[in-house]
């Protein structure tokens, strides 16, 4: 048993983190004017060249044959920088194309020749990958060619040019958002859950982004509490603030360690994997949102401004919560899956 990353993994994480810090830092948003969208530019090809889209894809399918834990570690860094959602989009899209046997398409996505947005079922008649109908929201469709739609029954890769997309303002202003009616004719690749559980995969990747997000806000809050002075002292010297920061750290530990456990449980096919993943999703969502809120409070007035980084993390935490399938479905899953106490043996209430 070892819940911590290996030395090789640590090197990889460092490389990923330094690329993101340099090329796609959260501060990129500060330069955006009111209606600038964070669309894929030159970074798409670079990220592809670094092999990010095929990290955990079999070598036979054009990937590097790594583990899901590798991808999870990568997405944690992506979350830490509020980095573009075409990164998880590309990871999921390339996998769907490859597993569906669309080698050309998979190669195009792995090489960053096209960008993949993320769709999510929404509205009163939410879309299903089985019926291939119903309503969806698509995040990041602007200047993207494809979108992934994943649910508990399967995963689809959609050709965006065959959907009638209606724009809507996104809570995270830098993201393009559209709604649409899912059309059967837009499906270019499909993978049923029996072949590959992309829903769990997407949940783990999104939860990893949440974990990175809540670690970043913890670090921002701690840093600010040390340098911002009021009443002649750093505000971190007031317990109201330092305790808030400790609670933020606790949420990070909960989210990340539970997610690491869940990811390994899933990869190893543990009987309680479904429960562990659902628990990880719930905690990651809650931690990211609550930390983002606490970070705003620690920053005071400046946290309310559009120009400061604080708000981007808050908005992203809500966007990504939606992309895990939403916390409610995972809460239900926790109660529907056996296994919470499976390893510990039967528990006697009141003993």
């Amino acid at each position: 048993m070892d819940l911590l990353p290996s030395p090789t993994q640590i090197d990889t994480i460092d490389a990923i983190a330094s690329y993101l810090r340099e090329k796609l830092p959260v501060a990129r948003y500060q330069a955006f004017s009111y209606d600038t969208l964070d669309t894929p530019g030159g970074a798409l090809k670079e990220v592809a060249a670094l092999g990010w889209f095929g990290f955990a894809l079999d070598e036979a399918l054009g990937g590097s044959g790594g583990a899901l834990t590798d991808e999870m570690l990568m997405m944690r860094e992506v979350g830490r920088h509020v980095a573009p959602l075409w990164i998880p989009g590309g990871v999921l899209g390339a996998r769907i194309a490859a597993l569906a046997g669309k080698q050309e398409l998979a190669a195009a996505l792995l090489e960053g020749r096209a960008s993949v947005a993320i769709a999510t079922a929404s509205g009163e008649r939410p879309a299903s990958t089985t019926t291939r109908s119903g309503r969806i929201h698509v995040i990041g469709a602007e200047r993207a060619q494809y979108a992934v739609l994943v649910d508990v029954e399967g995963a689809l890769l959609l050709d965006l040019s065959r959907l009638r997309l209606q724009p809507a303002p996104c809570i995270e202003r830098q993201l393009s958002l559209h709604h649409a009616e899912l059309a059967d004719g837009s499906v270019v690749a499909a993978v049923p859950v029996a072949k590959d559980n992309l829903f769990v995969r997407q949940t783990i990747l999104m939860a990893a982004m949440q974990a990175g997000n809540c670690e970043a806000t913890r670090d921002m809050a701690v840093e600010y509490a040390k340098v911002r002075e009021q009443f002649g002292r750093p505000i971190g010297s007031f317990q109201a603030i330092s305790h808030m920061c400790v609670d933020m750290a606790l949420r990070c530990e909960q989210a990340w360690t539970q997610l690491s456990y869940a990811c390994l449980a899933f990869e190893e096919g543990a009987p309680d994997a479904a429960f562990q993943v659902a628990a990880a999703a719930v905690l990651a969502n809650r931690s990211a949102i609550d930390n983002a809120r606490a970070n705003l409070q620690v920053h005071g007035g400046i946290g309310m401004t559009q120009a400061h980084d604080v708000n981007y993390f808050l908005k992203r935490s809500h966007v990504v919560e939606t992309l895990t399938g939403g916390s409610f479905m995972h809460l239900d899953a926790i109660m529907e899956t056996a296994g919470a106490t499976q390893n510990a043996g039967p528990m006697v209430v009141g003993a």
Partner: protein
Amino acid sequence: MDLTFTTEEKNFRDQVATWLRENVTKEERPPEGIEAADFDRAWQKKQFDGGWAGIAWPKEYGGRGLSPLQQLIWHEEYVKARAPYIGMCFLAVNQVGPKLMLEANAEQRAFHLPSILRGESLWCQGYSEPGAGSDLAGLRTKAVVEGDELVINGQKVWTSYAQYCDYQEMLVRTDPSAPKHKGITFVIVDLKNTKGIDIRPLELMSGGKHFSEVFYDDVRVPLANVVGSLNDGWKVTVASLAFERGTAFMAEQIDMANKVEGLIQYAKEHPAPGGRKNAIEDDEFRRRLAILRAEVAAMRAMSLASVSRIQREGKPGPEGSLTRLFFGQLTQSIWRTGMDLLGPERLELSPMAQGITHPYLRTFCNTISGGSAQIQREVYATRVLGMPKTR
């Protein structure tokens, strides 16, 4: 202790309701910008002309000279009639007015109070600075006396609506050598007719240029604009803080019932995220909404208790800090519940002041502006509970 209103109060309520029914415009309040400023002025003027501005203000300043309870009745009916948000008249009507009544000289009162009630002057508050937020008394914007003028140099920040306002109430440091609470002066600045003021609007993360940075470069203001005496500004501010924390938000407090009922309506009409039943039939949502209803009821009861105290003692009590703290937390939990109700729809930003996502983002400032939640707790802990001071 009783809940009955006198015949006079009941009649008053009927009159208010009738007037509001006949006069509340169907037109939506523009959420921001100069259009909002114009709208707010016009609506304030209409209330004044109808005899409804400054219900509890003395008659000599253009008010009605009625009781705080009647003011509360007005707020209740106002909210019921879905009359527009007070907007940019908020500071002038709810805070500057009461402050000037307490602290300003006769000339200042006669000049400013009637025009505030008529909606002719919009005010902003120049207190916070980059280095002085929670620690307001740490402010550094400097003013020196030259002849019969004050010359101001420095910077304020987060000044709500500065770009639209006519006047600014301002705190400046006039004696740098005195202990920090002792060297501050309270002064009124005519924003429209004074040189050297540079207002740079800043955008809120929920959208809209709500507040500004304001820079002062050799800004000359007549000494006659000082309220109270030189170096006595802290006292002027503190004297009126109770109004700010106690009663200024009464209309918004009462309006929270509308917000919760709005969410309940939404829950009746929409499925719970990931669920097949409408959200209102989902036990979790049903109970969370029930708690919000209960808390809103308590908020109203707290407002009524405040008014009772003002009626009896002439001023709001120290419970103001608690009311403000509760208000901030409650608005945030109302909209957090709203976000959860939305499910994937939460991806969409609603138009300003409508729907759920915009108000959700907007309410984060309710535990920051006007004294953060931490500061409200600290004030209550030390001043009311008698806890030892940590600083």
